[in-house]
């Protein structure tokens, strides 16, 4: 029998998530071994780069005008976050082909005569031949940025060999550089974020994440890209291991305009906006839907969220209640309001009569979590719980008696769903998942306001665990005061930043962090600094099966 209460659900959630994160049969407890058996550096994490991380890194290094037109491997969502799923992903063979062609194309553009002087940074003695000095300089500099740590001697040798052999075979220095760069772009050290733990000099026998791994974690959390020169320097000198050094970087990064990129990437993940990539609506039911509307809806939610939480640094809970947003001409037509601006995007505040309240009544949420041709209170309700309260809903049981739940030609969807609540096999989940969705039923599958269905007025009262509310505004009020919501954000920031699913052992830490979050006014940038400054953020988890190599292999050696 499925979990029947929130508490059981949470436990089931924890067990389920932990279960899925471990691919082998090793018991979970040994994954927590912090006392290492040896004193060699150990690789504690391998996570594939996401598409936006890949793109940002290339743009940082070679300029935003580099075209990347291949197809990225799809991401996978685990425990509500793509960031957690990336820990399970590798490269499929079709993916490998795509990345290979991407790497070649990028390398081509980098050595293009219009760009190569700036991008390569040095000239060979003879343009038709190999040149060790210039290729070494290029590979060292670029390699460090791509691998997010200095290259080892062996790596440098490997790639400079490719460069010189390539120069010989193609009769051009740049031809060799192109091959070496393509190789670096295909290397697992670039495509995967490989985190390394080293013996902690301050605590003999214990491990800490090495400086470069810390730099990566910070950079991907705050800016969604590889560490810049300043952050790498802080790792190199060890400043990143000190409280002051770390704080300096945290403040620098959260006050930079690049923080917007990081915040955007976080919310695309948490709010599951990747669903827009392939969203489809039935044109007969929703003729206004098209690609422009889809793109605009995603952008509206991101702009609104970033403006509220990052630019204005307001209380996170206002995400549910604030009607201040941004729209463009396409969205104005869907929302059926005039677009009173000559710019592409304009601020807009929904009036009370619109029944809109915060993020749950934006076209993005309403249309992503609905069917192609109709709304879906159950889907929306499930996502309210999953995304904002970190409570996923179990799959429906196989043995449901559907004979009791028949299609209705008339009346509203609500009536059919209320039938679910009478059905013993369905109650436990639907009682919890449906109410938020039922309150949103004045919005159809595209997010347009509609107050009647089949000629019958739609009742949007709802009852969730005893708490009653009506309509989207009522739901927003309920969510604003629901403590699970800020707690879930804290959990998500932690999981997103560390790449680990939080489990029971983290509960105390998360509770403390949540309390601090509340005390400081529920502000997101402060939360990120707060979590990234906590020792738990950088705590390495030593995997059970890590074998030390026969010869010592340093994690970040210079040649």
């Amino acid at each position, binding site marked *: 029998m499925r979990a029947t209460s929130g508490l059981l659900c949470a436990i089931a959630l924890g067990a389920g998530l932990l279960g899925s994160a471990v691919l082998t049969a090793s018991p979970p407890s040994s994954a927590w071994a912090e006392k290492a058996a040896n004193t060699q550096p150990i690789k504690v994490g391998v996570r594939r780069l996401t598409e936006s991380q890949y793109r940002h890194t290339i743009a940082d290094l070679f300029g935003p005008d580099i075209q990347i037109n291949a197809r990225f491997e799809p991401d996978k969502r685990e425990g509500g976050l793509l960031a957690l799923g990336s820990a399970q992903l590798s490269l499929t063979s079709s993916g490998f082909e795509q990345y290979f062609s991407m790497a070649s194309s990028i390398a081509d553009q980098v050595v293009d005569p219009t760009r190569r002087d700036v991008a390569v940074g040095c000239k060979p003695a003879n343009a038709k031949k190999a040149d060790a000095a210039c290729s070494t300089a290029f590979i060292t500099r670029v390699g460090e940025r791509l691998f997010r740590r200095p290259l080892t001697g062996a790596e440098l040798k490997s790639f400079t060999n490719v460069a010189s052999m390539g120069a010989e075979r193609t009769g051009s220095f740049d031809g060799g550089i192109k091959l070496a760069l393509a190789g670096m772009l295909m290397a697992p050290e670039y495509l995967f974020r490989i985190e390394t733990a080293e013996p902690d000099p301050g605590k003999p026998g214990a491990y800490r994440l090495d400086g470069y791994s810390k730099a990566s974690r910070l950079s991907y959390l705050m800016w969604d890209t590889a560490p810049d020169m300043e952050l790498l320097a802080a790792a190199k000198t060890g400043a990143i291991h000190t409280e002051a050094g770390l704080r300096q970087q945290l403040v620098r990064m959260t006050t930079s305009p690049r923080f917007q990129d990081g915040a955007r990437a976080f919310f695309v993940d948490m709010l599951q906006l990747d669903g827009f990539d392939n969203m489809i609506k039935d044109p007969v039911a929703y*003729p*206004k*839907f*098209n690609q422009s509307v889809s793109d605009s809806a995603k952008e509206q939610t991101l702009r609104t969220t970033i403006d509220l939480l990052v630019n204005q640094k307001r209380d996170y809970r206002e995400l549910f209640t604030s009607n201040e947003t941004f729209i463009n*001409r*396409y969205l104005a*037509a869907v929302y059926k309001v*005039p*677009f009173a601006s000559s710019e592409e995007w304009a601020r807009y505040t929904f009036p009370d009569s619109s029944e809109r309240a915060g993020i749950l009544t934006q076209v993005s949420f309403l249309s992503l979590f609905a069917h192609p041709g109709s709304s879906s209170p159950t889907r929306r309700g499930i996502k309210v719980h999953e995304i904002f309260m970190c409570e996923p809903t179990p799959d429906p049981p196989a043995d449901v008696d559907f004979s009791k739940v028949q299609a209705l030609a008339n009346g509203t969807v609500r009536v059919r769903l209320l039938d679910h609540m009478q059905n013993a096999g369905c109650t436990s989940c639907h009682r919890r998942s449906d109410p938020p969705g039922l309150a949103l039923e004045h919005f159809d599958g595209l997010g347009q306001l509609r107050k009647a269905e089949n000629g019958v007025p739609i009742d949007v009262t709802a009852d969730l665990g005893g708490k009653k509310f009506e309509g989207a505004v009522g739901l927003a009020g309920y969510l604003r005061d629901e403590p699970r919501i800020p707690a879930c954000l804290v959990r998500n920031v932690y999981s997103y930043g560390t790449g680990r699913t939080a489990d029971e052992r983290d509960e105390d830490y998360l509770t403390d962090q949540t309390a601090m979050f509340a005390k400081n006014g529920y502000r997101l940038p402060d939360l990120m600094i707060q979590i990234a400054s906590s020792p738990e953020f950088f705590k390495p988890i030593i995997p059970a099966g890590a074998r030390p190599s026969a010869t010592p292999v340093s994690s970040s050696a210079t040649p």
Partner: protein
Amino acid sequence: MKHQLIGAGFASLIATLVFPATAAADWTRSYVVEWNEPAMYYGAKSGVTDPGTDCPKGTNPEFDWVKVMVDAGYTKAEAQWLRDPMNPTRSPVHGQNQMAFRGKDKENVYTHPESVADPGLTGVSGTIAEGLNLDDDTKNGFTSPTGETGIDNTFYRTLGCWKTYRAPPRLSSGALQFNDAMRDGGWTTVIVVSGKGNDPMNDSNVRVGVYASADKMVKDGNGGISGDYTFRILPHARYEALFDAKTVDGAILSTKPSDVMIRDAGYTQELELLRAQVNLKMQDDGKLKGYIGGYRPWFPVYKGWVNARGPVIEALTWVQLPGVYYALKRNADFSPTGPAGEKTHISYAMRIEALPAFVMTPDGTKEATDIVSFKAQASPETAKPQSWKVWEDGGVIPDKTAKIQAGPTTPLNVPAGYGAAGGQ
């Protein structure tokens, strides 16, 4: 024949005299035009070209062009050779330019239609037409499909059996071609209706404004136009129509005529309408459907067809353009200078369908509620009329690669032995 179009200045003069600035209205409905075509009532029960009460023989049939050329004085072999696709002077895109030269002494009949005798153009012989009663005379004119008498639509009588115009609503080839161009972003026309009363459906003090907009329409998932988009009024030196009206059970009816100009869905872009009126119904589903009618100058209509390449129009729409000229001239039923003057104008109605939309003031900051003229703010760009280059070139597109062009004395180079067995 000299022809005078009403200049922008005159129209705006009328605007200020007849329409003083009004106070804020109590209700406003605004729309974007998603379809506009001449109101040509189709009298058959099925099909697109079938015989009906309007044209008992059906849509006007194709001409035997060889015969037309022979009648114009060409030999049969010359006529056949000219029509033959193998003839290098016949352009697959622009047609056979020599077709222009059918007048007396091989004069260009497109630019000098009176150089050839009237070939005739079968017009409508039915009694039913859509449109408006422009001359206040219920005995003069057609009967509308709903029984109203006195409908003045001589344009329809004259050209209503012509293939390019005749079909059920939204199906004529002409309407399809021009509306496609409009709906693909060619131009946008918006309509704002506002009134001072409490009930939009029954209000004696209503104003209607038809304006241009630079904002393109957006198509929906089924290929139709999406409603509810926002359009800013574009102050236009020429395209603006303001009406005084009343509403009766949701029908917007002019209370007095205006002289206006709007963008036409045709080869002649300017549609000047004198004594113009509206009859537009606000539908239950929020759409607007009805007519704008008035007396339009007939010569620019003819000129527009010629400007679209005479040979092409004649071949594709099965018409002899001089016939169009003669028919329009013969049937023109209005003189702006009074009953004794030359009848330069012809009664006409345009069928319009519009979707609800948001229409904003030119600066885009608020919804337009006052029906006023914006011509004073128009940029000089908007005063530029359309290009008449093809008309100036004789209604044909000259072949840039050819050494000699079609003309009255052009040698035709009929191949030796080219006989009766030739093209058509």
